[in-house]
């Protein structure tokens, strides 16, 4: 028998996150030995499911990885396939895809910030008390998420699992009347989004972060703040094409969890709103930039719990940018549209990447000459963030003197990452040549 004192802190199920996860922390003689984020959501083997299907079915299947970021999965798959076919959609379709994506950003961020993260700070353990005691905040959420849903319904046909986004473009261009309706609602919502950001910024994080994060995000393909691009920027200064993601991201299987995790040269990374703001915050739209410049984030405080605020700032940006896009689409409608090129099916392989609400999402496909999928790989934002979540927990527990009391704060910390465990557990390994 040793007289070393061993303890385990367990959080058996983290509520208010997507999918199912638990945290286990081993403490030996007051030192944190190990932290395990156990994602026990069932596995769905998406990389296997798509095999044998035609390229045009990818949108239908991959959206089902995750409801809340289904638009992101659909677009990543479409971008990969269109790259293989060397196809470019019309400018109007490209704009509408971006508008659709912003709808997802608004809906996802609003749901996470208001309905999943805010109750920690308002101390409302159940929905009835949240809706009853904080009616205006509850309504803030309903309005903003309705706005995101309205955009995605106007462009994609429904609030998630879109049916109007395809390889080669859209099956129907939304009418001017529906886009003008969306625009009016966007304008009405801007003030609400700003007040949400101010509210979230008023809650100081209950725990500190000790080491600086290693951020990764896609460089937006124009000079604006955005979610589509080809090249990854890191906070260490390097840039790499997303086609080479296998060379900078190492994927590992861990025995205790259904989710895999990705590291960069052995180091945990952080992707998502905070990474995007840290790397490209100077490109924000007017009001979003105003709010951002007054935050601790702007001054370099990288506490993960500020991710809630970073998401709220991105809602403001998404609203401002969506208004611009609708105007650009309407202008394009009045111009002569270039003839749509036919889709030429060829064999090939490529990666498509997008910035999802929670960070960079990669989809890789190999397609044969009949347009059938013969290999697939997906790297989700949650898989990239997991190691950093574990490191954060380890740091917080290590510095604390009242370790047993930490449970609720740790949950707040994990939730701030907005981990999507339904997303993280779809993996199938493939052998790379």
């Amino acid at each position, binding site marked *: 028998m040793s007289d070393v004192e061993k303890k385990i802190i367990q959080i058996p199920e983290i509520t208010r996150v997507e999918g199912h996860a638990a945290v286990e922390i081993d403490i030996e003689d007051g030192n944190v030995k190990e932290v395990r984020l156990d994602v026990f959501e069932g596995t*769905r083997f998406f990389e296997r499911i798509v095999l044998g299907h035609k390229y045009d079915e990818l949108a239908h299947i991959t959206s089902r990885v995750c409801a809340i970021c289904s638009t992101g999965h659909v677009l990543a798959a479409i971008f990969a396939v269109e790259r293989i076919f060397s196809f470019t959609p019309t400018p109007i379709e490209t704009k509408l895809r971006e508008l659709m994506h912003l709808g997802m950003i608004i809906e996802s961020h609003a749901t996470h910030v208001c309905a999943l993260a805010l109750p920690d700070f308002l101390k409302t353990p159940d929905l009835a008390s949240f809706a009853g005691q904080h009616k205006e905040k509850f309504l803030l959420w309903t309005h903003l998420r309705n706005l995101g849903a309205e955009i995605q319904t106007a462009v994609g046909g429904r609030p998630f699992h879109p049916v109007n986004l395809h390889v080669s473009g859209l099956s129907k261009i939304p009418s001017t009347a529906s886009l003008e309706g969306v625009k009016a609602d966007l304008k009405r919502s801007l003030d609400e989004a700003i007040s949400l950001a101010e509210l979230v910024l008023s809650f100081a994080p209950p725990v500190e972060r000790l080491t600086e994060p290693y951020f990764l995000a896609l460089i937006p393909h124009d000079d604006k703040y955005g979610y589509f691009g080809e090249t990854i920027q890191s906070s260490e200064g390097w840039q790499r094409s997303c086609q080479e993601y296998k060379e900078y991201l190492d994927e590992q299987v861990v025995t205790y969890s259904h989710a895999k995790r990705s590291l960069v040269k052995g180091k945990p990374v952080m992707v998502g709103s905070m990474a995007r703001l840290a790397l490209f915050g100077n490109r924000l739209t007017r009001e979003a930039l105003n709010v951002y410049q007054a935050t601790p984030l702007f001054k370099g405080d990288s506490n993960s719990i500020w991710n809630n605020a970073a998401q709220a700032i991105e809602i403001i940006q998404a609203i401002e940018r969506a208004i611009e896009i609708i105007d650009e689409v309407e202008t394009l409608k009045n111009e002569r549209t270039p003839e749509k090129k036919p889709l030429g099916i060829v064999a090939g392989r490529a990666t498509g990447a997008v910035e999802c609400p929670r960070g960079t999402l990669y989809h890789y496909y190999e397609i044969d000459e009949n347009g059938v999928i013969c290999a697939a790989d997906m790297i989700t934002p949650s898989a990239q963030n997991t190691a950093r979540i574990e490191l954060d927990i380890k740091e917080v527990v290590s510095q604390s003197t009242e370790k047993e009391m930490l449970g609720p704060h740790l949950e707040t910390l994990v939730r701030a990452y907005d981990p999507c465990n339904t997303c993280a557990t779809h993996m199938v390994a493939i052998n790379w040549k």
Partner: protein
Amino acid sequence: METNPRPCIAVEGLTGCAGELLVILENLDKLLPFVRVASFPFAQSQNDDGPVDIAFVEGSVSQPHDLEKLKRIRAKARWLVAVGNCAVWGCVQGGACAKCKVTDMLEAVYGQHSEIQALESRPLDAYVNVDVKLSGCPIDKTQFLSVTASLLKDHLPYITHKPVCLECKLNENPCVLIEKNLPCLGPVTAAGCGALCPSLGAACYGCWGPSQAPQMDAMATILSEKGYEALEIMNRLKTFGAPEHLFERMNV
């Protein structure tokens, strides 16, 4: 005198995409005046395991943990409502299990000696008695609210399983199968979405699951007349979890 306690509901997820949880969360403001949310781990941290009047369950049974959870939910619920294609049919992960063995998939992902357990992905009624099956991917919010309203009044709701074509005709859409040769699965897919895809000029891909008595053989015949190959037709028809026995009469 004590007033009658409000009916209790539970909203639980097994293995799925959380789509139904989102639809329910987003429409909860309409239910909150009438029910008490006893358990909804996706949306609140204080949950109790006591008996409930209605349990809504999303996702399919894909691991032993799901099965234990489902049995617990069944035991505490008066009405068990399977919500979404995953819970009713098994969705895309169910469709894949029809094509390849789950043990192979597991080995391919986590290696031979993994501690991770998986079951062949199955809908809820493979294991427990299900009172109401509300399909959709995701479910339609109007259908969800009307099913809930019926159950709160002690009525088993009526849910139509007529094909998507019916709603498509009511919308007066041109038929994309006949006129554009798109692989529209509307004839064999249950209605409920309002013929969403064909109304946008795209083919229905079957996300609501099979309609009542789907004529899979006739569907396959027309698709092969349109130039689709047998393997592709079967792949498309089986994507969203249509069970094997519906294909017995076919010889593709």
